């Protein structure tokens, strides 16, 4: 079971860059500078959280320092500088900030992308593509993390993802989603539509869809997908099937309920078929060609430096903003689009489904030409 989750450290390191690319392109980093003592009247932290130790929000200075630290740790992590420590510190500062962010009576459940660096730093995602390699006179081959540790850390993280999905499924079973008379998905669609004005995409169309069988299929398939996720962790191959299904599931949740649950999409990318990607873009070749490798690292370093300065400026110049804007959001703002943050998130969902479709086609073509079982689409187990 555990060994099936092995991902080579060079691929994990490539995922670290992909993780950073997704965050800076589609999401942006959270800013905590909008929080402060002036909001204490609204202070309502969850019953079990660190914020409960406080009687109100700390001062603005605390949140300014936290935002800067979070930003610094993020870029050091992406650049692979003291990667194991900076990955953990990025996760800790993000969670600490969100502890207060979610102290207005509601928490969002976008935790997986925040805790992913803790698991993956142990797995060896800081072994390659690191900035310190640029400053060594002779390039030494990085010491790779032991395969046992790498596969265990990825396996624990897969279990974490599956467990989270299963908790939602188990609660749905308790709530009666499997009851033939109820139409749970439809109930939540109506409620979201009118209570929260979630009226975009296909919400209006499905609101008028009066087909009991359809809604029951929705209810049952949701529960099976969420609970089955946990069982699928027994082997990476089965887990991959569920990750593929989950990409579609989150996409449909966006189309029907207008809930962009982006956190999971970021971590699902860890389970793409790295061998296939390596064949396409040559990750291995990049590592062995010293000059190209150094140029690549220099470009990443320069890009991160510019973005760090931009976000640092933004965090203080626009202290009422919740998010340091990603590249797509910045572009949309310049073009004058309203709701640029939402549009940026939506593009991540459409992009993920496009990748899923492309991988499915690649899988079919691959099997046809090679005449072998190439494994599940999009996401692939170790061959």
């Amino acid at each position, binding site marked *: 079971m555990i060994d099936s989750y092995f991902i080579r450290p060079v691929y994990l390191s490539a995922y670290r860059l992909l993780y950073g690319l997704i965050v800076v392109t589609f999401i942006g980093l959270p800013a905590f500078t909008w929080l402060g003592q002036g909001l204490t009247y609204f202070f309502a932290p969850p019953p079990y*959280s660190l914020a409960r130790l406080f009687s109100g929000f700390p001062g603005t200075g605390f949140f300014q320092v936290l935002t800067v630290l979070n930003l610094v740790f993020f870029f050091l992590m992406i650049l692979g500088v003291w990667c194991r420590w900076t990955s953990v510190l990025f996760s800790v500062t993000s969670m600490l900030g969100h502890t207060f962010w979610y102290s207005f009576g509601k*928490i969002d459940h976008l935790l997986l992308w925040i*805790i992913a660096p803790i698991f993956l730093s142990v797995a060896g995602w800081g072994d390659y593509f690191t900035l310190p390699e640029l400053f060594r006179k002779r390039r030494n081959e990085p010491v790779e993390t032991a395969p046992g540790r790498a596969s265990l850390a990825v*396996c624990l993280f897969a279990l*974490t993802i599956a467990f989270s999905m299963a*908790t939602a499924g188990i609660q*749905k079973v308790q709530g009666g989603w499997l009851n033939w008379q109820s139409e749970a998905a439809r109930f939540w669609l109506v409620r979201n539509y*009118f209570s929260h004005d979630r009226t975009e995409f296909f919400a209006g169309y499905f609101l008028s869809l009066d087909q009991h069988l359809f809604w029951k299929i929705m209810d049952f398939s949701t529960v099976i997908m969420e609970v089955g996720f946990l069982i699928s962790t027994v082997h990476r191959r089965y887990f991959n099937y569920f990750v593929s299904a989950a990409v579609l599931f989150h996409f449909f949740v966006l189309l029907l309920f207008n809930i962009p649950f982006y956190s999971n999409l970021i971590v699902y990318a860890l389970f793409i078929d790295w061998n296939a990607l390596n064949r396409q873009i040559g990750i291995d070749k990049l590592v062995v060609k010293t000059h190209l490798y150094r140029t690549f690292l220099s470009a990443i370093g320069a890009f991160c430096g510019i973005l760090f300065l931009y976000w640092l400026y933004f965090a203080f110049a626009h202290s*009422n903003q919740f998010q340091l804007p990603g590249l797509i959001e910045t572009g949309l703002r310049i073009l004058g689009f309203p709701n640029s943050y939402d549009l940026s998130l939506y593009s991540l969902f459409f992009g993920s489904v496009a990748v899923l479709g492309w991988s499915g086609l690649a899988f079919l073509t691959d099997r046809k030409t090679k005449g072998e079982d190439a494994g599940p689409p999009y996401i692939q187990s170790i061959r």
Partner: protein
Amino acid sequence: MKMKRTATGRSILSIYFLILCLHFFIFLIKKAEIYPSLIFPAFSAAPKLQDLVKFSITDLYGVDQNKHLVRLSKESFFQDFYDKHVDNILNTITVNEARSRTNPNIRNGRGAFIDFSKKQLNRLFPHTRFVALLIQKEKVQYHLSSQVLDRTGIVESRTLIKLY
């Protein structure tokens, strides 16, 4: 060597899984939110739908000098807040308004909230003088067959916040 490694790995995996289960068990027993938490939102309610879908909507109103109610855009009023949490902020205000008489900590923060409200109302309606805010939670029902939203007029809760 590999067998020993696998046994250790399995032990770590089992202990980790038990911790996750314990965490979920506490959540189910206490029925209270935890942060950070790996428990995902359930949307667990699954009522039997017999043409009617019943739920509540919370609205925010400004009350002017003539006691006329003006419905406010919640997102615009709380523009400096995270807009996905606006309904929860209104719930918190409702709870705090009731508790502010007895809890000095909440009473101390109330002044800043009143100033914030006046500022927002001035920004949204510069030519109208509002004397109070009203948070009203109303029962509504949606008819599946006719696709009509029916505002029942049944008020679940009403919180009046005097600004002057």
